[in-house]
């Protein structure tokens, strides 16, 4: 029996925006099922552009992207978007339906699932992020941390192969940050986390990839990457004051 295909395969991906600005210059990335990987890099490194390629929002450059063996192309777009769940940075962008329950149901209903199955998935997804009682509440009644967790539920309900999080810890207070980490650690999915929060990357992701100037400049164990001061300095990555990755955990 052959091993399962990688959850995510990015092969020599290059992309230039219509205005001529080239953001990616040949990115290679491979995520095995169940891996948790942090995507690090300074602002303008091409992280968001890469993320937009993972579910086919951006296409048309060189190279290819495959999700669990399925190439990203026009005819596979709906299935790719089911398999790759992107949680955007601002939960107010992610939660656009009038109630939490309707929002979590948005994806499954777009998949055309029967209503009992939709209800089951909504309940499961909200339970997974510890927000089971928020079903009928409007999103603007929730705290920021709760909204972020509900935003995760909105893609979990599509039962994705890969969960992509854009700056999951931004704007969270320390308790909200810890609660989200506890939720993310429990999820049985492949995780790609775009972040500037290096301690968070170390806490959640055994492996990290550094993107800068549109190429992958480092790929390895998070603890080792974060201990490499020259690497961090060369790519505008900085640890918080007093944080030493060698003595943590």
């Amino acid at each position: 029996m052959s091993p399962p295909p990688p959850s995510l395969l990015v092969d020599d991906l290059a992309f230039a925006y219509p205005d001529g600005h080239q953001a990616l210059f040949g990115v290679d990335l491979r995520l095995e099922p169940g891996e948790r990987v942090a995507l690090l890099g300074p602002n303008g490194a091409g992280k968001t552009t890469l993320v937009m390629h993972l579910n086919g929002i951006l296409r048309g450059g060189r190279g290819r992207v495959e999700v669990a063996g399925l190439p990203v192309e026009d005819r596979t777009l709906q299935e790719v978007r089911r398999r790759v769940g992107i949680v955007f940075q601002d939960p107010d962008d992610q939660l656009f339906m009038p109630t939490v329950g309707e929002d979590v149901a948005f994806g499954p209903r777009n998949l055309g699932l029967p209503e009992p199955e939709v209800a089951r998935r909504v309940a499961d997804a909200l339970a997974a992020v510890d927000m089971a009682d928020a079903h009928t509440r409007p999103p603007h009644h929730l705290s920021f941390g709760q909204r972020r967790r509900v935003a995760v539920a909105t893609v979990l309900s599509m039962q994705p192969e890969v969960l992509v999080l854009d700056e999951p810890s931004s704007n969270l207070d320390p308790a909200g940050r810890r609660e989200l980490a506890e939720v993310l650690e429990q999820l049985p999915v492949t995780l790609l986390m775009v972040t500037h929060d290096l301690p968070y990357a170390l806490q959640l992701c055994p492996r990290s990839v550094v993107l800068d100037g549109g190429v992958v400049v480092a790929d390895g164990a998070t603890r080792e990457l974060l201990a490499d001061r020259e690497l961090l300095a060369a790519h505008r990555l900085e640890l918080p004051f007093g944080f030493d990755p060698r003595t943590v955990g």
Partner: protein
Amino acid sequence: MGAGHGTGGGGISAMYVPGHSPVHRLEPHTKLVAVLAFALVVVLTPVHAGWAPAAYVGFLLLLLGVAALARIRPGRIVRGLVVEVPFVLFAALLPFVSRGPRVEVLGLSLSENGLAAGGSILAKATLSVLAATLLAATTDPRALLRGLDRLRLPSVLVQILTFMIRYADVVGGELARMKVARESRGFRARRVGALKVLGPAAGSLFIRSYERGERVHLAMLSRGYTGRLPTGPVAVVGGRSWAAALSLPLAAGAVLAAGSLLG
């Protein structure tokens, strides 16, 4: 998080009075049809008939009956009449500007036709607005949208209204933060020169909202959006609910019929 927090949907759902009365429980789309039909009956009342004022009183009593059934205090409904102010101004002008035979009232020369037309515009507008206010007071805005969707209002319009409800608070919060930021640096909106600051502020709020719209659209595409907001299961509405909802316009129709037969 601060601004716009915990206000129950802010300005948009401020009209809604939660409750469990029979009026609240009616399916929203049946209520929408009922209010529309009621307004039609009111508008059909002939302006110059001698019995018209009696019919208006009849319509008003019907509405008050519904309000009592829904346990909505009259004061609450009267507040809804604010939207009617422009009509009032127009109606008040008519007796002065209309032609035809004139009457003296308090030393003013007024047109008889204008008085009748102005009074009837006022009565009809007031009755229709009262009915709409009752609808808003007994129906959650989100339920109202489901009702519109069920009545086959174009999906794009329903989506725009849905997003308006969802983002009114978010945009309102942004507006409030911009105001705080301005005033923290000593800005006061009293002087005429303030417009130079407020104009660009409105522009930047528009651009921020536009950009948010783009980000929301991306988030929707990422979850398989295909052009329609998917709705949940649709409740089956029996003849009995329709009959209950339509009893209001039917009763109004009866008032109208009685007026034209007897009057």
